[in-house]
């Protein structure tokens, strides 16, 4: 381990021109986890292995995780802390390398134990962030999460000869119905936070929304905002996530939304794609489901018909860029220390994530979908957007009913299930 290369960082550098595909896989049983990693490694596409952790480990309940290992009971992920160093090293032995990096994904707001286990194991990549792994997952105060993520960044940064990779999950907050400018602002600010505490290889994220043109504009805007605020291009890249909300239930519907996410990733020049499987709406995906999804994404990427021929409406990228730029600039001006600025921005309600019930989120901003699936601000709450942004981008209706919320949450499910009953060419259903 002493002289091991930066697996994740070097792999991404070398894979230029291809879309790296990655699953969300995590199993409790050692043998199954190893089988999953090994199968992912051996497919043709450029892949990164994923170890997703279980929710006992996420919530710091290591005793229950250890008990589950002992009793052979099923958990919803791999309990990396409780399996211990020797077992973890055995898990990745002969698999990890600059041809196959592995990333640990967890959803924990105070992950010191997890980071120590990652370093001990010899893995060099994880994801999350002080906002994105705190707000959606319970009630741990934002301040505590910020403190913990500072420590975790420093744990990674302390290893001098190796570039550990940290991905911000900020572009995926709440999974859906968050205006893209807020997502971009969160992920870029989390990346700046990582950088401040010594991280030298990082990525920013964004998730698929419900209109392909807005998605491409948003992904393009993220790249431009990143270029404005982040360090040299070789230190960071953009990762895209296939839709994370209520998934289409039909095979063709699921297939179509997965394919559209590749279209967006390709047009928006994302380097990496985190996939979903056709079984998403029905069950926790098996290893086979994941392999199929990775292979499909790889094929779709190399299929000329997934290159978008339509033009993005003029001004769309610029509008998202301007909003995100405004939010980041606002936050950075609140304090010279970003870890304090983040806390102040939310405390004042200047930053506000719609639909997020975390006690430190102001939750007075509201977002809505329009008929075409564009995610728009309906109410800015206390976010002090300038007037012309309010005029240009805000949906006019400020009240939301329960049935309308349900409709918005089911928008993609309905759209893809309805319009893809037969073999439908991709993009046919997009109105623009």
């Amino acid at each position, binding site marked *: 381990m002493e002289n091991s290369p930066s697996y994740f960082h070097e792999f991404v550098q070398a894979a230029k021109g291809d879309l790296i595909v990655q699953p969300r896989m995590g199993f409790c049983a050692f043998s199954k986890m190893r089988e999953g990693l090994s199968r992912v490694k051996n497919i043709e596409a450029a892949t990164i292995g994923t170890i997703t952790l279980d929710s006992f480990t996420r919530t710091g309940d290591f005793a229950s995780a250890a008990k589950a290992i002992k009793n052979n009971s099923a958990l919803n992920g791999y309990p990396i802390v409780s399996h211990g160093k020797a077992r973890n090293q055995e898990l990745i032995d002969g698999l990890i390398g600059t041809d196959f990096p592995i990333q640990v994904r967890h959803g924990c707001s105070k992950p010191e134990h997890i980071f120590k286990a990652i370093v001990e194991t010899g893995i060099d990549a994880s994801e999350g962030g002080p906002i994105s792994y705190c707000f959606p997952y319970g009630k741990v105060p934002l301040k505590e999460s910020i403190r913990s993520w500072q420590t975790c960044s420093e744990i990674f940064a302390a290893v001098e000869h190796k570039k550990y990779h940290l991905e911000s999950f900020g572009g995926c907050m709440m999974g859906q119905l968050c205006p893209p400018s807020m997502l971009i602002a969160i992920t870029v600010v989390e990346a700046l936070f990582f950088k401040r505490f010594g991280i030298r290889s990082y990525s920013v994220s964004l998730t698929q929304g419900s209109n392909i043109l807005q998605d491409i504009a948003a992904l393009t805007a993220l790249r431009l905002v990143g270029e404005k605020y982040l360090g040299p291009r070789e230190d960071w890249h953009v990762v895209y996530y296939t839709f994370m909300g209520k998934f289409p239930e039909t095979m063709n519907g699921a297939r179509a939304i997965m394919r559209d996410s590749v279209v967006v990733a390709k047009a928006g020049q994302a380097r990496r794609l985190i996939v979903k499987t056709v079984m998403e709406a029905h069950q926790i995906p098996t290893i086979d489901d994941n392999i199929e999804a990775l292979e499909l994404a790889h094929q779709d990427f190399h299929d000329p018909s997934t290159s978008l021929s339509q033009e993005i409406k003029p001004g769309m990228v610029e509008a998202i860029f301007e909003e995100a730029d405004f939010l980041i600039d606002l936050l950075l001006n609140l304090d010279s220390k970003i870890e304090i600025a983040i806390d102040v921005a939310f405390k004042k309600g200047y930053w506000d994530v719609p639909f997020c019930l975390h006690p430190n989120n102001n939750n007075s901003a509201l977002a809505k979908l329009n008929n075409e699936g564009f995610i728009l601000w309906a109410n800015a709450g206390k976010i002090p957007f300038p007037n012309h942004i309010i005029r240009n981008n805000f949906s006019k209706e400020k009240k939301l009913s329960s049935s309308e*919320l349900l409709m918005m949450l089911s928008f993609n499910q309905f759209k893809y299930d309805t319009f893809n009953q037969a073999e439908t060419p991709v993009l046919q259903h997009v109105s623009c």
Partner: protein
Amino acid sequence: MKPRAVLTTIPSDSHNWNLIYMQLLLEENDFEVINLGACTTYEEVEQACLEFKPTVIVVSTVNGHGYLEGKTLIEKIRARPELADLPVYIGGKLSTDKNMSYLYSVELEQAGYSGVYPESRKTADFISELKALAKKAA
């Protein structure tokens, strides 16, 4: 005075969307809502009941652990004499196995819930129950 609902979930459930939906539904039916948010501890729920004196408690959960932690929650509520008769409802995805929903519903009702709404039951029926409660409270 408006009838008041304490809206909650179970300790391991980090989902938001169901709670946001339920808050809107309760408000549309004229309830004042105290939404305790995701990953709520048993103690927080007990405390909120004593503090806010609600007309009803609504437990919404979708992570599949409702049949386990939902049961512990109602046992703790019913163990307090002052909460013994408080209407308490639970609904959502109560276990990861849909086929077990009916059985678990019976178990949860026996444990002390006033009503149990697995995915298969209609929201309209729940609204009718809410309306009856609101009328009684008025």
